């Protein structure tokens, strides 16, 4: 996922993505990534190796799949995640038409009170960042082929909103 193009929107600015994806089937057969950079692990990996992942110099990022279930049965895990020392939570959009991530983001923000960084990854495009931001995402890894600058501008698509319980996007400082 690491890339030298500034295709990450974060805090209202374009930057280079610093997070690398940890491959569970890595050659060294590591259970968890080395503590040498920010690595992203899946929610399942994090659940399985929570203790190993504590107290790192570089806390991990945790990736939630779009079909995650945050219902009562799993809520203690989600609560634990939101209390843990992690770099950020990312939600995957396998396709931009898969809208589950929007509801998951709302649950993380409003029910589980996640106040850290929430990143949209996967099929994230110019045309979806505005709604994503309103649902609680504050960073966006823009897919290849989409101009990240235009995506940043798209956070200004609408100046007003109707739905009261959804936040306003964090916008760039426009001249």
């Amino acid at each position, binding site marked *: 996922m690491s890339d030298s193009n500034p295709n990450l929107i974060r805090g209202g600015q374009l930057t280079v993505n610093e997070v690398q994806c940890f491959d569970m089937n890595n050659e060294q057969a590591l259970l968890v990534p080395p503590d040498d950079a920010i690595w992203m692990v899946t929610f399942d990996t994090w659940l399985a190796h929570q203790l190993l992942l504590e107290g790192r110099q570089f806390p991990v990022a945790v990736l939630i799949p779009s079909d995650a*279930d*945050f*219902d*009562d049965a799993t809520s203690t895990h989600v609560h634990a995640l939101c209390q843990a020392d992690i770099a950020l939570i990312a939600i995957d959009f396998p396709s*931009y*038409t*898969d*809208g*589950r991530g*929007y*509801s*998951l983001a*709302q649950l993380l923000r*409003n*029910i589980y009170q996640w106040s850290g960084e929430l990143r949209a990854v996967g099929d994230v*495009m*110019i*045309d979806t960042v*505005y*709604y*994503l931001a*309103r*649902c609680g995402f504050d960073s966006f890894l823009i897919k290849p*082929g989409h*101009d990240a600058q235009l995506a940043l501008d798209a956070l200004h*698509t*609408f*100046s*007003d*909103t*109707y*739905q*009261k*319980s*959804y936040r306003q996007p964090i916008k760039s400082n426009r001249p």
Partner: protein
Amino acid sequence: MYIYDEIDQKLVEQRVAQFRGQTQRFLNGQLSEDEFRVLRLQNGLYIQRHAPMLRVAIPYGMLTSNQLRTLAYVARRWDKGYAHLTTRQNIQFNWPRLEDAPDILAKLATVQMHAIQTSGNCIRNTTTDHFAGVAYDEIINPLVWCEIIRQWSMLHPEFAFLPRKFKIAVSGSVTDRAAIGVHDIGLQAVEHNGEFGFRVFVGGGLGRTPLVGKLINPFVAWYDLLTYLQATLRVYNLHGRRDNKYKARIKILVKDLTPEVFAQQVNEQWARIKGGADTVTAEFVSAIADKFTWPSYGVLHENGSAAIAPHLEASPAFARWFRTNIHQHKITGYSSVTVSLKATGSPPGDITADQMDVLAEMADNYGFGELRVSHEQNIILPDVKTKSLYALWQELSVLNLATPNIGLITNIIACPGGDYCSLANAVSIPVAEAIQQKFDDLDYVHEIGELDLNLSGCMNSCGHHHVGHIGILGVDKAGEEWYQITLGGRQSGALKAGVKSNTDSNASAAIGRVIGPSFAREQVPDVIARLIQTYLSIRESDVERFIDVVDRVGIEPFKKDVYMDPLLAKTSNLVRESNV
């Protein structure tokens, strides 16, 4: 009429700007066909047989004369001079060019109209009773509540990419004229201990798995409406099926989970947000109500019936029209008039630019410049002084807009079918016309009485055939078009004569039952005629409607008569042979 404030206006303009950018990127090759498809759908643009088809919302069916004139302008400038009213209070243009779509939408925005979320897997245009705001039997004014839902659902950040489309209908009256039982969510206004709220039905819908909505909450107080809707949509968004588009509607989720479990899940989500920021306040409701301009009816000293009585006596044609096309108004001295767009020979629901202009004129001259569109694909002049009905009728007659067939067999609901739609198995418009021609004797049509005949060109059911008292469905057999007949469907209350309320019963829509093998196109009018003969021969009196007879005796007698008829039986054997 709801009048946009600055924010409403800005939002539709910003949406046009957004779509203009998207169209540009698509045309420049910066947005792939796959990426663009969903974005254009959410702006009302389908790619169809002839060209893109543009579906414009008429929120809760309400239009001003000025808006109608603008639609006429659009039809002339960018289309072929006509448009089509749909069964969900939208209007469709069949021939615009993709390149022109942003300009069309910009033009519409100048009169507070848009095509936002008229298509795609999002919350669609909320529909209601076509007599909303003027009906005599209203518990609440659904227009205000539809506007509240419109604002809540429009550009909704969480529910723009649902598993499938989502349709909400609201009934504010004792009699449901909004077909709430066949919507993803149907809301029926009710009063409970002096407080008002809504009965909530979920999981109704037509298409290939027709189902009637299930009551999941008998009373949601008005102030909780939006949080309850949010909770319902959230359960659907998270758990609705996304692996199979034919199983993706909320009706399948409700069926798979059972209505009880579904309701339980909604309650769990609701508990988390109930009373939160989206709770509706009394100030908000009155602020929305204040943004409507309400007609100033004044006080009429007479109810107008004296003025029209002589005409009713002298003109049987006027009397016939008065009987079917006039609806009682909540204000004494006023009537609501349905302008039939179902004259024989014009495609059901089609309206020309000239007709739009004329009707806009009439809305100004005879009313307060407001109109409604109905899901039965007709136009309503909601506020006509009863004493002026005769004059209005004369004007409409000259224009062939006074067909006295509202509620009758020739008021056919039909989708565009094979002439326009690339999904069709069969044509619809020519069949509708052939049936209308078969029933060209107005006395006979009135003798038959109330009857909904609905026609779809394929099982997507855009013509609501499942809920027609008689339904006709185009089916494909070995590449040929055939028509299947259903009986006993209805869109709402089984209101038997004398029964005034359906608020206590469940969603009282019903899905029609198939009578047997399909028929060839030429046979359809004769089959319908045969069904009507059977009805007339077994009804107990002329207050027993076709649907009442089907309820009483079932479909067997009809089936028997149709398939025993030597003429029809012979050809239906042919049907079977040709399928061997």
